[in-house]
């Protein structure tokens, strides 16, 4: 554990960040626990280790702001306020799932809190955030849109096309790249000439920051600046959030168990657990107590147990529903 730096945000925000990260961590760990039963029939891309990004960014957002996410999107949805019940129900393929059992783990959606969906095509949802930002600009107001995506997405042309257009039209969008240094098992330097994703902002004169995302406070501040610029009509920002995923690309095992990367690498990163880091800081500053933290953990556990139970009790869709929702047929 590195030395805790002084807490430089109000205590209530810090407590919320902690709570959001714990919610995400426990939400994902619960999936790890039940996945072996093989009744959650959906490919899960867990974000354990990366929680600070979802929490730090979304803490700056309002319900009427939009986010777009990816195959690794559980954390983003939770941080934006999506219901754990509806998420789990979706993963169990149930009718009360957020996508009525049509999307699974890779396509969560929660329009009521600004989650405009997720694409499992790498880079696919990036331009949707730009489009939402274009709509915001046309419709007026100070809402913003956020695109979450991985380092792999920066290999795709659509990433570059999206940045260009957002900068060209000064759109209120924040590009949040979660650079976990891998796309499936391909290390970033096997795919790109350098691993500095922020450099891509330069040709577009786009403000950018490379953020150590094991420290949620750093993420929070960087996102705060980006969101403020976007709300003020000053256009897009590229944030490169450096992070690490603890689990494998898909499923509950770790990559070293599959021989995809060295165990030591994971262990080094695990020394810098983002949840632990903030909680230690809060304890050191006397903002929370050990007891409060334990209670918080138990409370989240109860909420998630309830959500999981709800999901398992939900009915499956009627098989006839397979033919529904192909086309929109009116509100």
């Amino acid at each position: 554990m590195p030395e805790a730096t002084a807490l430089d945000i109000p205590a209530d925000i810090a407590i919320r960040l902690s709570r959001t990260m714990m919610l995400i961590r426990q939400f994902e760990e619960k999936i790890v626990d039940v996945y072996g039963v093989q009744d959650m029939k959906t490919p899960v891309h867990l974000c354990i280790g990366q929680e600070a990004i979802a929490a730090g960014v979304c803490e700056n957002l309002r319900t009427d702001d939009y986010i777009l996410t990816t195959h690794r999107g559980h954390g983003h949805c939770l941080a934006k306020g999506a219901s754990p019940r509806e998420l789990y129900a979706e993963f169990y393929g149930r009718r009360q799932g957020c996508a009525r059992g049509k999307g699974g783990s890779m396509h969560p959606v929660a329009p009521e809190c600004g989650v405009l969906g997720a694409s499992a095509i790498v880079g696919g949802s990036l331009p949707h955030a730009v489009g939402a930002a274009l709509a915001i600009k046309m419709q007026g107001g100070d809402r913003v849109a956020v695109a979450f995506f991985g380092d792999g997405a920066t290999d795709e042309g659509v990433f570059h096309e999206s940045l260009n257009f957002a900068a060209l039209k000064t759109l209120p969008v924040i590009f949040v790249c979660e650079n976990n240094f891998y796309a499936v098992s391909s290390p970033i330097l096997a795919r790109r000439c350098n691993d500095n994703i922020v450099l891509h902002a330069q040709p577009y004169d786009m403000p950018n920051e490379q953020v150590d995302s094991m420290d949620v406070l750093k993420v929070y501040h960087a996102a705060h600046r980006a969101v403020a610029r976007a709300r003020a009509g000053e256009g897009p920002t590229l944030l490169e959030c450096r992070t690490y995923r603890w689990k494998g690309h898909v499923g509950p095992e770790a990559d070293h168990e599959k021989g995809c990367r060295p165990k030591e690498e994971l262990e080094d990163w695990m020394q810098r657990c983002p949840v632990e880091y903030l909680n230690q800081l809060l304890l050191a500053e006397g903002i929370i107590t050990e007891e409060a933290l334990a209670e918080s953990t138990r409370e989240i556990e109860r909420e998630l147990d309830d959500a999981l139970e709800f999901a398992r009790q939900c009915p499956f869709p009627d098989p006839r529903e397979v033919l529904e929702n192909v086309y929109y047929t009116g509100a």
Partner: protein
Amino acid sequence: MPWTKVYLNVEEMADTLQKEGLRGISYHEAILEAQAQAMESDDRVFIMGEGVDDPGGIFGTTLGLAERFGKDRVMDIPVAENAMTGIAIGAATVGMKPVFVHMRNDFLPMCMDQLVNHAAKLCYMTGGRLHVPLVVRAIIGRGWGSAAQHAQAFHALFMHIPGLKVVMPSTPYDAKGLFLAALDDGNPVMFIEHRWTFNAVGYVPEEMYRVPLGEGIIRREGEDVTIVALSQQVYEAMKAAAILEADGISVEVVDPRTLKPLDEELILSSVSKTRRLVIADVAHRTGSVGAEIVCRIAETSADILVAPIRRVCFPDTPIPASPVLEEAFYPGADDIVEAVREIVKGS
């Protein structure tokens, strides 16, 4: 009825319309008018595309719109079709109604990911919680050596994709009416226009009206053979029908207008009557719309045909450049006449 009529020459059109006191305008003017009225009546509508605000105005179809509605609503865009399609999708999911114009169909493969994986899927993948009201205007070119990458048509490809709708208007009346219906539809609609129909003229009401998606139309009634003709081939089929009439062969011309959803009933009822079928398309043979139509007939009414079907379509080769090769490549009225004679004679 004036709105179902296909006019093969301008004089005939002018004459008839004048007699009936109706307004005749061209196909490209009809599209221009439809877009202008849509933008006038609905703030959510905007047009985007490479060169939509240039002096040519996309063959006249966007002429003057940028001046009238501003360049924010009639938006020139980067040459980045995939992201721009995704951007249109994103805007559509939050209440806008984008119209994306492509000068050529051939550029659509650049945005196949956003069209096929995203526009077509979002409604289903989200259990109906999002939908994508998007009209993609895709223009088919032809001639003057346009060659392999500037004259293709992809309606068969798009027709294969659940979640997309595919429209191919042939007349000015349908161009306007189907455009406005497509814009109201709430789903991604591939609106495929053929350059060679742009100067066709016909009756087009001044007010806004809709031609429902999924309703085909009989362009000419006949007894002996049905020609299902798509887009510009409707004109070739009408010419062929006139030639064949002189031979004593009575031809029915069916224009499906929408390919997805397809007016199967209309096609089936026509073919049930004539018991012979020729399909005239503006694309390659293999995996074509014609193949789908024939399959649907075979699935429900395998025994109605008394003669082999014929497809008048592009050969399975890329499109060539030389005028001589183009002439050899493109099928027209002559080929339709020949196809009809073959199957009428043989049965």
